[in-house]
């Protein structure tokens, strides 16, 4: 698409400037003009132009070459084409030496100028595609982390594939470190939006006003410090996906604004009066229980229902312990390469420590623990000593003390409730874990009035 690339034409002669701009606009480009070098540099601070056509001879103390050098300081990737009516080999050489991509003599042949712009845009498209593919490659590596033996995780991955080509909003719920962003990336990169942007916004990291400007962008001068127009994350994600992490933390005002974007797919920049329309898929994530937040009046119910079109709940690591050996092997392999350590295995005793630990920080904590152990490890095997720091924080081990004054029946009820929660209400799986028949489990659920 040509319209993604913006061009600035710089010439002190208005007629020259406008005629080239008009010609390029007919070719489908977005074109602005500047009547001096200084005006061009000022405009380049506000917008990221892909190509600059700069007249060599301009009055006012800033000629074309000086303009080009200042633009390159701000935007090293920008392509500058120097235009001149005075063709001399010397100026051509100087312009190219100082970083001009091309050099044209006016009046120039329309075919020449058209081929020139086409060639530059082709290179820019390839560069952009290359950057995107590199990012995609590195992110596919992340998606591998999601691979799991756990039946519920397999259901989630299946759902991820099923919904990847839809535009429906997805709400991912799960504790910190369970891989909510990985699932969101998996949805984006396996769907038909994969070639477009995947933009991440951490809603908890910014104050309300900053978050508003971050999401919707702002116009120049809309508040102190807004020295230039800025695109918001929704605009940056146009055609792609926006991932709103920690959505449960946003203010009531932003909840209203978000609701409007989800309903109308349009919004206004901060301080702006022009409606901006976008085609963005929204994936939101939260570690807090949003349903409870709705019940407590902290989160708007209409926004919750808009977000919760497709719901994904990622189980915490302690509810899928069978994945621990798989994840550890993956982290060891990757970190050995990154850290330059010859570690290849984890000893049986070392793995037992990891299996018994509670993992409140989930997969992220596991990854950090493996990294910490590898940094201090001297051999090729990670042993239980390498993970001794886990025992020190008092959460390791499965030592358990019976709560005082609790009946056996109360204990049984708690056990059944916890197991059902862990299996997502799966009776067959829960019965197998508890070591009882399914019919016995049904009977106990009924007797203890356990909600399902």
């Amino acid at each position: 698409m040509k319209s993604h690339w913006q061009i600035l034409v710089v010439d002190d002669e208005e007629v020259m400037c406008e005629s080239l701009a008009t010609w390029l606009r007919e070719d489908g480009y977005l074109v602005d003009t500047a009547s001096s070098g200084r005006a061009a540099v000022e405009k380049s601070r506000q917008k990221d132009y892909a190509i600059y056509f700069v007249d060599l001879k301009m009055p006012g103390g800033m000629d074309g070459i000086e303009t080009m050098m200042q633009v390159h300081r701000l935007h090293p990737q920008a392509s500058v084409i120097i235009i001149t009516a005075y063709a001399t080999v010397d100026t051509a050489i100087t312009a190219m030496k100082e970083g001009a991509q091309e050099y044209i003599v006016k009046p120039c042949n329309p075919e020449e100028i058209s081929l020139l712009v086409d060639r530059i845009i082709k290179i820019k498209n390839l560069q952009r595609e290359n950057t995107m593919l590199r990012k995609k490659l590195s992110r596919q590596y992340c998606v591998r982390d999601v691979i799991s033996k756990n039946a519920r995780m397999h259901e989630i991955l299946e759902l991820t594939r099923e919904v990847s080509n839809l535009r429906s909003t997805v709400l991912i719920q799960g504790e910190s470190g369970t891989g909510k962003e990985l699932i969101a990336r998996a949805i984006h990169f396996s769907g038909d939006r994969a070639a477009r942007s995947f933009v991440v916004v951490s809603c908890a990291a910014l104050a309300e006003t900053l978050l508003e400007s971050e999401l919707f962008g702002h116009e120049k001068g809309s508040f102190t410090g807004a020295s230039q127009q800025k695109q918001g994350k929704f605009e940056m994600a146009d055609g792609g996906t926006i991932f709103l992490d920690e959505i449960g933390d946003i203010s009531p005002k932003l909840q209203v604004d978000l609701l409007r974007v989800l309903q109308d797919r349009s919004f206004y920049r901060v301080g702006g009066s022009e409606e901006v329309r976008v085609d963005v898929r929204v994936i939101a994530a939260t570690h807090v229980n949003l349903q409870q937040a709705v019940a407590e009046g902290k989160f708007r119910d209409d926004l919750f229902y808009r977000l919760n079109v497709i719901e994904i709940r990622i189980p915490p690591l302690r509810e899928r312990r069978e994945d621990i050996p798989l994840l550890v092997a993956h982290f060891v392999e990757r970190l050995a390469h990154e850290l330059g350590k010859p570690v290849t295995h984890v000893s049986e005793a070392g793995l037992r420590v990891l299996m018994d630990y509670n993992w409140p920080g989930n997969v992220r904590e596991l990854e950090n623990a493996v990294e910490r152990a590898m940094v201090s490890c001297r051999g090729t095997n990670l042993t239980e000593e390498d993970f001794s720091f886990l025992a020190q924080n008092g959460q390791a081990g499965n030592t358990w003390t019976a709560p005082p004054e609790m009946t056996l029946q109360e204990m049984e009820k708690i056990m059944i409730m916890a197991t059902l929660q862990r299996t997502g209400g799966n009776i067959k799986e829960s019965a197998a874990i508890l070591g009882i028949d399914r019919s016995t489990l049904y009977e106990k659920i009924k007797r203890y009035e356990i909600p399902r």
Partner: protein
Amino acid sequence: MKYLYVGAMGEAGREAAMAVRERVAVEFGASVRPVDLPAADFAYDAARRQYASILVLEMLMRACPEDALKLVAVTGRDLFIPVLSFVFGQAQLRGRVAVVSLARLRQEFYGLAPSREILLARAIKQALHETGHTFGLVHCAERSCAMALAASIRQIDSKQAAFCASCARRLRRYPREQS
């Protein structure tokens, strides 16, 4: 009721203007009317020995009848814009006026034997192209579409005197009442 006016600037463009009128009536689905326009002599640039198309467009703006949806002019003069050595024509993007130059559409310009058929075929393609710009169409990537960029006579000849499906669709969506 608004009309699409097509007129020749001087004697040289009369036959071509007539051929253009018939074709634009079909392609743009508008009622077409002829109009008398002055020759482009006023736009002559002695240094370039060509005619400034920007001045021509300005004159057309002034000459544009009130009931004109668009005004398309055909001239025999060789047109230029300051940054380019020549243009086959020029239009106001999403505007009301456009001009087509026959000077470089003639076989004689390239040292070949004159051909009335070739000249008229090229004039029609260029008129569809420039008029398309006034309806908001930009250059099309489909090489055979009338809206494909033509910076050389070869490129004009490889086009057809019709819009591709995508440009035709955009044309239908263009709000006529804006013009």
